[in-house]
């Protein structure tokens, strides 16, 4: 009698232990699954928010790209009629205006950005890649073959974490580029680099 009682007790205790271990295992697996799910969901959510942020920034830049193209400061016109192109002569003057007294006004419009126009066709010979077109370059005889970039606006933050670049092809108009040439058109890109 005593033996079977002990035996029964021992049996009961072992079974209970197995049940307890089983329950702990189940709780552990369920917890792991929930944690993995939460980590995964948070990661995806973070990625999605970052992507959406990038998209919003990109859409904003697109709207600005259109607005800049139509700015009277750089848009070309013939006999008061607006044309679908950018006047490179106006670009030189626009930079002076934007960088001058009106810088604060343009800073509220553009914010932390770099707005530039780059000639892509025809390809220029020699080492003129990324050479900024200035009044000085304009006065040289070889203009417009001595530079390919017009920086309209530039405001960089102290620390840059992300640069979002967006561009659109544009027609570049060179009025009276040389004494014997008029109404020359080239192909360029209007580029906006947004900083974050």
């Amino acid at each position: 009698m005593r033996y079977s009682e002990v035996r029964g007790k021992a049996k009961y205790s072992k079974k209970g232990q197995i049940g307890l271990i089983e329950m702990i295992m189940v709780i552990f697996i369920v917890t792991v699954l929930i944690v993995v799910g939460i980590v995964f969901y948070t990661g995806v959510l973070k990625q999605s928010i970052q992507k959406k942020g990038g998209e919003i920034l990109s859409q904003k830049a697109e709207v600005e790209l259109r607005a800049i193209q139509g700015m009277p400061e750089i848009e070309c016109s013939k006999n008061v009629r607006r044309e679908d192109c950018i006047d490179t002569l106006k670009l030189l003057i626009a930079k002076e205006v934007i960088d001058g007294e009106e810088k604060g006004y343009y800073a509220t419009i553009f914010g932390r950005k770099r707005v530039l126009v780059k000639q892509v066709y025809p390809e220029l010979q020699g080492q003129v890649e990324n050479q900024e077109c200035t009044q000085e370059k304009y006065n040289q005889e070889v203009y417009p073959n001595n530079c390919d970039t017009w920086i309209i606006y530039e405001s960089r933050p102290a620390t840059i974490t992300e640069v979002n670049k967006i561009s659109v092809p544009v027609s570049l108009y060179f009025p009276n580029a040389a004494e014997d040439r008029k109404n020359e058109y080239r192909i360029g890109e209007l580029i906006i680099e947004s900083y974050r």
Partner: protein
Amino acid sequence: MKKGQTEIIGLLVIVVLLIFIIILFVTLRTKPQEKAIGRESAYTASLLTAILKATPCERTDTIPARPVSIEEIIRRGIPRQSTCGNGEARQEYLAKELQIIKGRVNTNQKVNLQILIKNTQNPQDIILVGNSCLGEKTVERRIITGSSSGQQERFEMVLEYCTT
């Protein structure tokens, strides 16, 4: 509740959790990407305008020398006295220049561009630069009328844009 039933309920809870995670994963992975149709359309329209306006060469029989646009070359052919090409035919010259433009404008590997100029009255008079897009594409067309050989001709310039 019997022990077996409890075990089955536990198993069911795990299965349900697994299914939930799988559904969540699949839903987030296959979320349709929003396409910036407006942007592509604006891009192709701007590029086509810029190409047609571009003046790669000039006439040498006028004083001062008058620049010749790509649109003019399509419409009237290469002027005899000009700096356009080295005596090449219009087709060869335009194909060469358009290839250069395509390469210079499209530096993004994910974007595919195709430029096509066809004479609607003469199917053999065709200039094709680049490969056609397989997927969803944005197409911009311009009709250019002219007369290169004394008779009225009608050209169509088509620009295809797609992301690969």
